[in-house]
C-alpha cells in the first residue's frame, strides 16, 4: 500500500512537471526579415503603412458616419497655451506588404519640442517576434492631428489624410533635413532598439505618398519609413 502511494505520488508530481514543460505558451508569428545590406555596411529595412486601412481604431470607434477626411485611431492633448500633442496607432507592414507589427506616431508642437509651424515626432515600431525600434525626428511641417467640431461630433483630422494638404507635393518627405532651432539637435534618428534590434542605431526618413484623393476629400496613401542602422558604439 505504501509502495502504491509513493508511485502514484511521484506520478502526480511528474504529470505537473511534464505539463509545465510542454504547455504550449503563445508565441508570435514571424515573417522573414527583409533586410538589405548596403555596400558601406549596416542594414537597411523599410516599413510601410497604408492609410486609411492600417489605422487601428480605438474601441468603439467607427469610421462609418464620420466626415470623409476624418481619421480613426488618434487622440489629441492640448494645453492652455495651445501646445499640442497627438497620438496615432497603425499596423506596420514589411516591404512585402505582410502585417508584421504595430507602429505608433506621437507628435508634438511648441515650447521645447519644435519651432513654430513645425512639430517633432516619435515613432515606436513594435514587431512582436523581433523587438522594438525607437525613432525620433523633427518634421518639416506641423504634422500633429487636430480636433474639429463637426455635425458628427468632435473628429480627428490628420494633415496627410486631408485632400487639401496635397497640392503638387506627393511624395512628401516629413523628416526635416536639418534639425530645428529648438529641441534636440537631431532629425531622423534611430535612437535604440530592443531584443533583435538591441545595439542598433542610425537614421531614418518618413515619406508620405498620396495614391488617391476623392472628390469628398478622403485620401488613400502610404507612409514609408526607411531605416538605416548599424551597431552602435
Amino acid at each position, binding site marked *: 500500500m505504501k509502495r502504491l502511494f509513493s508511485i502514484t505520488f511521484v506520478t502526480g508530481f511528474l504529470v505537473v512537471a511534464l505539463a509545465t514543460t510542454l504547455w504550449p505558451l503563445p508565441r508570435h508569428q514571424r515573417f522573414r526579415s527583409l533586410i538589405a545590406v548596403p555596400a558601406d555596411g549596416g542594414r537597411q529595412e523599410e516599413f510601410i503603412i497604408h492609410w486609411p486601412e492600417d489605422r487601428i481604431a480605438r474601441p468603439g470607434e467607427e469610421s462609418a458616419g464620420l466626415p470623409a477626411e476624418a481619421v480613426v485611431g488618434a487622440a489629441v492633448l492640448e494645453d492652455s497655451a495651445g501646445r499640442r500633442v497627438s497620438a496615432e496607432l497603425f499596423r506596420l507592414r514589411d516591404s512585402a506588404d505582410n502585417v508584421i507589427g504595430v507602429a505608433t506616431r506621437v507628435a508634438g508642437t511648441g515650447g521645447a519640442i519644435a519651432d513654430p509651424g513645425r512639430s517633432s515626432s516619435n515613432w*515606436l515600431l513594435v514587431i512582436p517576434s523581433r523587438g522594438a525600434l525607437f525613432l525620433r525626428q523633427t518634421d518639416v511641417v506641423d504634422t500633429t492631428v487636430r480636433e474639429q467640431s463637426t455635425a458628427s461630433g468632435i473628429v480627428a483630422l490628420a494633415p496627410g489624410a486631408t485632400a487639401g494638404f496635397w497640392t503638387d507635393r506627393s511624395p512628401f518627405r516629413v523628416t526635416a533635413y536639418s534639425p530645428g532651432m529648438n529641441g534636440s539637435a537631431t532629425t531622423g534618428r534611430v535612437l535604440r532598439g530592443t*531584443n533583435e534590434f538591441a545595439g542598433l542605431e542610425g537614421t531614418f526618413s518618413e515619406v508620405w505618398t498620396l495614391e488617391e484623393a476623392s472628390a469628398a476629400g478622403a485620401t488613400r496613401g502610404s507612409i514609408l519609413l526607411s531605416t538605416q542602422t548599424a551597431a552602435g558604439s
Partner: protein
Amino acid sequence: MRTLVGLLGFALGMLLGCLLLVFNPLASARGLRPLPGDVAPVKAYRWEGYRGMEISVASLLGLGRGDRGVALMDPALRGVRMGIIVLPAGEGASAALAVKVSTIADENSLWRAQVATNDYWNIFWPGEGSVFASGYSNFWGVLRDDFLAAALGSDEAPEVTGRLVSALAPSGTSTGVAGASGRYAGFTGEIRELRYPGEGDAKKSEPGWGIAIKVNPPPVTTR
C-alpha cells in the same frame, strides 16, 4: 482501498507539484525593487480603451479567447495590446499623452516562473518633451494571487495595493528610458509598472495600472 490510496497519492503529488510551481522562488529572484515615491511618484492610469489581447493570466497562458471586439486579428498581432493613455498631471508635471504597447514575451516559461510581457512607452508632454521607455512585466505574482483566491474560494484577489510587476528581462535587454527629447534630452532613467486589482468583481473588471518614471539628467560637462 487500493484505488483510493492510488488516487490520494496522485492528487497529493499533483498538489505538491502545483504548490512548488506557483510558489516558485525564481519568481521573486528577478523582480525589481520599487522606486522611492519622492523621486518617482506613481502615476495611476486606466487602460480600458485598448486594442488587442487582454492582459490576464489566462491570455498569457494561451487560454481563453479574449474580447473579439477589440482583438487584433492579424496573425502577427495576436499577442499584442496597445492603447492611447493620458498620464495625469501632478508633482510639477503636466498631463502627458502616451501610447503603450505590450507584447507577450517569447521567453515565457512556466518552470522559470515567467508569464510576462515586453512593454514599450512613447510619452509626450505638450510643449515640454518626450520619453521613450521599455520594460518587462512578469505577472507570475498575479497568477499566484489568482491561485490563492481560487484556493480560498474568494472572488477578491488578496492584493489590496498595487502589485509591482516590473522585473529584469531574461533576454538581458536593458530596460528603462530609451531616449528623450525637448526639455528631457539626454536624460536616462528607470521605469516601474504596477497593476492594481479591478474594482468590484476583480475577475470581471479591468485592472488599474500605474507607472513610475525616474529620470536622471545628463552629466554636466565643463570646457
